[in-house]
């Protein structure tokens, strides 16, 4: 069975991190499991955690008045769920629920934030790795906005 340390160190998003920092991450990590349909976080809630998805599928959902809830994205194995813990206002921007039975590694974002305040090098390393995740979502959302398959 792989240890948390091995999994985190091997994950592409943490590639190149000094082992001291990896150790810090491991210290904030734990295994979690969500049953299919379970709510993982709610839009507007405090974002103090992020997840390394190991098995399963997570759907990000947005609720708007007079609309049925819309799934804006699905994430799967190997992906990172949650970047809102790192940037103010530290609030979830959408709902997330397990679309299938999901197992993940949860990392304590609040604890990591405090460590980043104390150690700016760590802060920069994490920001460098999470910014692309935010950018990817931005780009994907833009393309979704274009509604390329719609009839004009």
């Amino acid at each position, binding site marked *: 069975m792989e240890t948390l340390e091995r999994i985190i160190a091997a994950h592409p998003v943490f590639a190149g991190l000094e082992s001291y920092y990896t150790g810090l991450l491991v210290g904030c990590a734990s295994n979690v499991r969500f049953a299919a349909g379970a709510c993982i976080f709610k839009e507007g809630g405090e974002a103090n955690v992020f997840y390394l998805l190991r098995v399963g599928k997570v759907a990000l959902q947005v609720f708007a008045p007079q609309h049925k809830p*819309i*799934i804006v994205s*699905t994430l*799967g194995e190997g992906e990172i769920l949650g970047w809102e813990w790192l940037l103010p206002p530290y609030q979830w921007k959408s709902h997330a629920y397990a679309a*299938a039975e999901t197992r993940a590694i949860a990392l304590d974002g609040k604890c990591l934030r405090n460590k980043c305040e104390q150690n700016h090098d760590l802060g920069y390393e994490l920001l460098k790795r999470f910014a692309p995740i935010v950018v990817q979502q931005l780009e994907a959302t833009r393309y979704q906005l*274009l509604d390329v*398959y719609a*009839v004009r």
Partner: protein
Amino acid sequence: MSAQPATDPMRPRAYIVRQVAKETPDTFTLKVEAEERGNDSSFQPGQFSMLWVFGVGELPISISSNPAHHHGLMYTVRSVGQATHALVSQAAGSTVGVRGPFGKGWPLEAARGRDIVVVAGGIGLAPLRPLIYQVLQNRRDYGRLVVLYGARSPRDLLYRKELAAWARGDETQVLITVDYGGLSWRGHVGVVTTLFKYARLQPRRSLAMVCGPEIMMRFVTRELETQGLARQDIYLSLERNMKCAVGFCGHCQYGPYFICKDGPVFRWDQIRPLLDKYEL
């Protein structure tokens, strides 16, 4: 010195509509057969015909049938205007005019021995379907087949039964995503580029064939390059306004190319500088 009527590319030949099958709320697949026996219905995957409805008008439509079947042709048509509406409203037994096939199709020769990555958006899957049939029916001539398909929503997915059947094939991976998922959709949600992370690709061995809205093809080709495919291993199918389909009317010009005869399939390195030009 006038052309023989039978081979005059501007004259439509009569084809009988055998079936009009509904694929999605606005998209239908027509199955037609030549009225005159012996009229050749052979074509290359990626080619298109000009379909004519008596008294209404004529349109370029990609051929989406099995190239191994020589007795009929299939066209998947989205009803967006007067002429397409007339096409999809044809009753079985009625007649439509067919000119063609026209254009350069998918590069079957270059694809031999390579892995094939098919990336389709919306109705872009229609001109790729003949290619997929070609690969599946000549399995030993090609490597792995990966099909990435994105549509607007679950009810806009084309050829669902066939997609499921293809997925069960040897060395074949089929991944589907929608832009807007409903609560009952258990699959992926997101633009088609989000499927790449699940695709088992061997970039250096792969040839990619892409078809869909132009914006989609722009971001897909960028992603394919990021995945490690070479520019000369990526092919796209483009479309423009067409009237004659034989390079005379000038409507389908795209930079120096006539989409009707230099395309509609183009190699990415050839047209890369053109795709970024707004209002070319």
